[in-house]
C-alpha cells in the first residue's frame, strides 16, 4: 500500500472560474513537503479539494492515497483513511463543545463495520487523559474543552485547536493550509512545535504557505512552487530561501522567458 499522496493532472473550478489547471504533485509518505506560491495561485483550493470540499467542481485528474482515488470518497472517509486538513479558517459550530466534537471525531475513527459503536468508543477516562495531555502540550487552558467549537476563538486559539485535533486523530498525511496566517510569534512557535512533534515516519505534512517565515520553524525536505493553478517548480529547502530573497516575480519572469 502506498503512503504517498499522488496528484495527477488535477483540474478544478469554482462557479465558472478555472482555478487548478493540471496539478501534478507527489508528497512522499513520512516527509515534510512545502507548497509556496503567491496569493490566488490555487494553493488553498488544492488543500480543500484534497479534503473533499463540496464547493469545488473537479473537472479532471486523480488524487491517489493508500491505493484509492480519494476523489471518489466522502470527506469523512478521507479522514478515516488518514488524511487531515488543518483549516486556514476553522469553522465555528455553536452549541457543540470542543470536547464533544473531539470525542465524536475519535469515535468515528474507531468505529468498525458490523460492530456496535458503543463497543469501539473510546473509554471516557482514556479520552480525558488524551485531551488533557494534548491541551497541556499546546499550552491551552482546560476550560477550552467546554467552550463551543471555534465560537469566539482568537486566531491563535483556532489554530491551536486545529493542531490539538491533529494530535488526537493521529493522521498519516496532514495538509496544513496557511497555518501561520494570523499568528503572532509565540503562537506560531507553539503550533510549529505541535506539528514537528508529529511529523516524521508516521505522519507526512504538506505545508501550504505564502511566506517563508513558517519554514523557519517547520523544516521541509521538499519545496514546490505553485503559480496560476500549476506546480511550476520543485526543489529542496534552498528553493524557499531563494523565493524569500527574490520574491515570486523572479520566477514568473523566468517562466515567461
Amino acid at each position: 500500500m502506498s503512503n504517498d499522496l499522488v496528484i495527477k493532472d488535477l483540474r478544478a473550478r469554482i462557479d465558472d472560474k478555472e482555478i487548478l489547471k493540471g496539478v501534478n504533485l507527489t508528497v512522499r509518505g513520512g516527509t515534510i513537503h512545502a507548497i509556496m506560491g503567491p496569493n490566488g495561485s490555487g494553493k488553498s483550493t488544492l488543500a480543500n479539494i484534497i479534503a473533499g470540499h463540496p464547493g469545488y467542481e473537479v473537472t479532471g485528474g486523480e488524487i491517489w492515497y493508500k491505493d484509492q482515488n480519494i476523489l471518489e470518497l466522502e470527506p469523512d472517509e478521507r479522514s478515516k483513511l488518514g488524511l487531515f486538513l488543518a483549516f486556514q479558517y476553522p469553522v465555528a459550530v455553536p452549541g457543540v463543545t470542543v470536547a464533544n466534537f473531539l470525542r465524536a471525531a475519535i469515535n468515528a475513527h474507531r468505529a468498525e463495520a458490523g460492530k456496535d459503536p458503543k463497543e469501539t468508543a473510546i473509554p471516557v477516562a482514556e479520552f480525558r487523559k488524551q485531551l488533557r495531555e494534548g491541551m497541556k502540550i499546546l499550552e491551552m487552558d482546560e476550560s477550552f474543552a467546554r467552550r463551543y467549537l471555534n465560537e469566539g476563538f482568537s486566531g491563535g486559539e483556532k489554530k491551536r485547536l486545529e493542531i490539538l485535533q491533529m494530535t488526537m486523530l493521529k493522521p498519516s498525511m496532514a495538509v496544513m493550509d496557511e497555518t501561520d496566517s494570523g499568528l503572532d510569534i509565540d503562537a506560531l512557535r507553539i503550533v510549529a512545535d505541535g506539528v514537528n512533534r508529529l511529523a516524521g515516519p508516521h505522519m507526512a505534512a504538506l505545508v501550504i504557505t505564502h511566506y517563508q517565515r513558517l519554514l523557519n520553524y517547520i523544516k521541509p525536505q521538499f519545496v514546490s512552487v505553485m503559480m496560476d493553478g500549476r506546480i511550476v517548480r520543485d526543489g529542496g529547502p534552498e528553493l524557499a530561501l531563494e523565493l524569500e530573497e527574490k520574491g515570486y516575480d523572479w520566477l514568473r519572469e523566468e517562466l515567461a522567458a
Partner: protein
Amino acid sequence: MNSITLKDLTADTIVASSRERGEPGWLTERRREAWQFFAQAGPPEWRRTNLSGLQPEGLTLSASGSVSVSWDPALAAQGVVLKPLHEALASHEALIKARLDTAVAPLEHKFSALRAALWNDGALLFVPKNVAAETPIHVRYSLPAGSRTSFPRTLAIVEDNAQVTLIEEFACADQPARVLAAPVSEIFAGPGSQVRFISVQRWGDGVYHIGGQKVLLERDAALEWTSIALGATVQHIEAETTLKGDGSRVNWLGATFASGTQLLLTAPWLRHIGHHAESFMEFKTVVNDTGYSVFDGMIKIEHESTATSTRLEEHALHLSPRARNDSIPGLKIDTNSVLKGGHASTSGDVDEEQLFYMQARGISKTEAKRMIVMGFFSPALDSLPLEALRGELEAMIEAKI
C-alpha cells in the same frame, strides 16, 4: 359525562355536572358564563393555524384527563402544596378563586372560553413565603386511552422570596383519531421570587393543542422559562410573561421542531408594565420534511413602564426545502422611556461549511447534522434540570432529523 360530545352540551348540562362534582357556586357560575361566551363566539380568526381537520363539535368529552406528579415529598414539610386541582378546591378554595382565570383571560376567544368552561383536571402548586424548593416539581399530563379531549390546568402560586422549579409536560402516544388538548397554565410569581418553568409539549400525532400560558411577575421576581414544542399535529400556544413588578426579569428560551406535516405555532409575548424590568427571549426553531412553524413573538411595552431593557430573538434552521417557518417578531412601545430594546431573527439551511468541517474530521454527514441541530437547541436543552427528561427529548429530536 361519558360519551357526551361537545355539541350535546348546553349551559344547563354544564351547570348540572359542576354541581354534581360538588364544585363551589362561583366556579359553576364561571363555567356557565364561559360556556355562553363559547356558544356565541365565532371561530377564532387565526391566519396561520389551520383547524379545519379538527371539528371539535363531534369530539367525545372525557370524564377526566390524567395528571401525574413527581416530587420530593420532603417539600411538603416545608409547606409546599402540590395536589390535583379538584382536591385543592376543598382545601384552598379562597386561593384558587382569587387566582384562577385571572392571568389567562377566559373570555378572549372561543377556545379560551371552552377551556374555562370545561377544565376537568389539573394541579395546584403553592410555595409559601421564603421557601426554597430545591428539587424540581414535575407535573405530567397524559391522555387516558380512548380520550378525545383534555382540558388540563396548572395553577402555581409562588409567594414572596420563594424559589421553585416547575416542569409541565404534555405527553402521549400517537393517536388513532383527532384529539383536542386545551390546557391553561397560570403562574403567579410573588415579590422577590425565583421561578424556573419548563413547559414541554410532546404529544403524539393526532393531537390539536390549543394552549394558553401566562406568568405574572411581581416586584424583583425572576423567571427562567424554557418552552419546548416537539409533538402534536397542530399547536397554537399563546404565551405571555407579564413583567408587572419593578425590577422583575425574565430569560425565556424556546426550542421548537416541526417535522412531517406538523404545524407548530407559538405566540410568546413579553409585556412590560413595571419600571427597570429586563427581558430576554431566544427561540430556536428547526423545520424538516413539510413541517411548518410560526413564531409570532411580541414585545409590548406599556405606557406606565420606564427604563425597560428587552431583547427578542428567533433563529430558524431548515433541514428540508419544503419545510417552512414564519417569523413575525413585533415591537409595540407605548412609552417614551425605554433603556434598551431590540429584536432579531435569522433563518437558513444547515451550513455547508460546518458540515464539511465536521466531516473532514471523520464524522459522517448524518452525525454532523445531528450534532449541529443539538448544538442549535443547546441553550434550551442545557437548561433542563432533569437528565432523564433531557435524554428523552434528545431521542425525540434525533428521530425527527
